[in-house]
């Protein structure tokens, strides 16, 4: 059990430690202090521009069909409420006070000295959400969380904890965005998720950053016996410098994880995104599915399956579509078996849309633009469970933009 001092010591020692992957971000280039923002009792009071931005990352501003809402603007909590009795939503600072430092959860799935970003978060962290589904609670509607950068040039460093207790079911939709006016900034997000025996967590994260924003999420997930963790990650807008490699550890027999990502990299984007599943108990299963599109940006799509317990089964699938000659898609699938009866497989394909596919649809009466849009839509169709309607519309509009911009 890591004591608070121990965490701080580790973090101090790692303050200049470069991350294993991704460009090294100069943290001194950003401002440290953000102005304090007022609490907004009713999120409907946001400006119409902000509301539009929030909706595009899956936030239901009116709060309809949501079991709770957490909203953080820069370093301030602007809204935090739960409307379901099986559920608790706090800022992590409040949760640390309430639960005596959360010793079983605080920095237990992510190491504070993993790199300079985790170290910084351990020393400078400003809030983040704590979402707790109580034992056996089936939370009917998703909880929405929003981490928003509204001030130019700041670092937002948050630490989030989700706990799904035994037999509970929870869907969390997290939208991360910058204000339309904000161009430059940095987001560091530590996320530690714990799915207990027989629990189910669906975690959908949508990123929509300003063009000059650097993003370093650091996520660790621990899934116990017969628990299920489903992660959907969507980033379809430019991100100058995004690097993340969330790790899911299946520690209980029969635990299952499914990790889906949809990445669209326009010109100027650099996305280094992966997913790692560690199958650490008998009978665990994992699936990682990535669909990446480059319209001119660079995507590095990593995946790592580590089978180290008997009767484990996992599959990794990365498919990339290059819609521009300027773009790069680099798929790096890794399979690592440390026991003879781990069944690991992967399927990777990167390339342009085959002209035969376009002509096949044209022979059924679609023009070339519509044929391409149809193929792209099909390509991105990975059956994401519980995707909000606003986000589905957003995906459609991005696909529409491709077809219009493609000359």
């Amino acid at each position, binding site marked *: 059990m890591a004591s608070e001092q121990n965490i701080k010591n580790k973090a101090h020692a790692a303050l200049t430690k470069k991350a294993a992957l991704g460009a090294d971000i100069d943290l001194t280039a950003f401002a440290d202090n953000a102005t304090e923002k007022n609490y907004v009792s009713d999120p409907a009071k946001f400006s119409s521009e902000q509301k539009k931005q929030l909706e595009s990352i899956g936030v239901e501003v009116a709060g309809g069909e949501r079991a709770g809402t957490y909203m953080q603007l820069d370093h301030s909590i602007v809204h935090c409420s739960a409307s379901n009795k099986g559920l608790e939503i706090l800022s992590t600072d409040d949760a640390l006070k309430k639960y005596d430092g959360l010793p079983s959860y605080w920095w237990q799935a992510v190491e504070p000295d993993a790199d300079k970003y985790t170290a910084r978060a351990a020393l400078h962290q400003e809030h983040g959400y704590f979402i707790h589904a109580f034992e056996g609670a089936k939370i009917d509607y998703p909880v929405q969380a929003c981490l928003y950068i509204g001030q130019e040039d700041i670092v937002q460093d948050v630490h989030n904890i989700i706990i799904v207790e035994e037999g509970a079911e929870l869907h969390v939709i997290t939208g991360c965005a910058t204000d339309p006016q904000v161009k430059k900034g940095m987001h560091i997000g530590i996320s530690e998720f714990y799915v207990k025996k027989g629990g189910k967590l669906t975690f959908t994260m949508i990123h929509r950053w300003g063009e000059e924003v650097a993003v370093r999420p650091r996520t660790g997930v621990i899934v116990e016996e017969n628990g299920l963790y489903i992660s959907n990650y969507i980033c379809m807008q430019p991100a100058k410098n995004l690097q993340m490699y969330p790790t899911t550890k299946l520690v209980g027999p029969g635990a299952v994880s499914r990790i889906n990502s949809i990445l669209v990299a326009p010109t100027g984007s650099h996305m280094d995104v992966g997913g790692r599943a560690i199958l650490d108990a008998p009978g665990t299963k994992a699936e990682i599915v990535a669909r990446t599109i480059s319209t001119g940006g660079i995507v590095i799509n990593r995946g790592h399956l580590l089978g180290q317990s008997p009767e484990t089964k996992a599959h990794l699938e990365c*498919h990339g579509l290059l819609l521009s000659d300027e773009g790069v898609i680099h798929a790096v699938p890794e399979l690592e078996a440390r026991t003879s009866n781990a069944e690991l497989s992967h399927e990777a394909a990167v390339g342009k849309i*085959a*002209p*035969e*596919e376009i*002509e*096949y*649809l*044209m*022979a*059924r*009466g*679609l*023009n*070339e633009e519509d*044929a391409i849009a*149809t*193929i792209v*839509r*099909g*390509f*991105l*169709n*990975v059956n994401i469970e519980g995707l909000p309607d606003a986000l589905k519309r957003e995906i459609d509009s991005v696909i529409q933009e491709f077809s219009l911009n493609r000359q």
Partner: protein
Amino acid sequence: MLKLENLSVAVNDRPILHDVNLHIKPGEVHVLFGPNGTGKSTLISAIMGFARYTVTGGKIYFKGQDITKSSVDERARLGIGVMIQRPPTLRGLTVREMVQICGKKQVDVDELADKINMVEFLERGVNEGFSGGEIKRSELLQLMAQQPDLVMLDEPESGVDIENIALVGKSANYILERGMRKNGQTVKKYRTDRKKSGLIITHTGHILQYIPADTAHVMYQGTLACSGNPQEMLSCIQKKGYEECVNCAL
């Protein structure tokens, strides 16, 4: 309906078809025999306008209009429909969505799928993991929704098991509006009323047991070597082989 005038076609700069002339009138079904690799599939791909197939000479007319330079979708919208031998897989696009794309009007996808035993495939990705016969049925289902005026089928019987070959024939006849003489309609009227035309490639001829064809052609080394009655030509080919059959007719 379709008229080819001295059509020559090359693939990757390699000439495949030479001076092909063909006239298919409204309501006629023509069948195209010929050994493998002789240019039969090239012919229908060129008529459809697929980019790999370069017209190096001659013209293609459809319903009186010169379509030699028209795009694939323009030809499809004018009323040409095709079943190629190996269509690509479209991941994430279901057969149901594909049939809806094909349907010019509101089509009842389930009703059409029922006719060709494809209901259980409707929610699957187009051609994803389909067997040869399933691909044929899926293509026919799309054509049933598309309702083209000229239907081109490339070896509709290949890969189809005996159980399903009659179903394939029945569905092709449905698309061609054949075998549906109404009560009281005279044979003459039935023949003059039907307007759908077909061009069917076969090298086994099995499908002719199910689809009555009006005229047959033999394609040999990139040219239409001879034309005549489908059954007579088929029995000639079966008895003597293509080479002799073509020589005899020439």
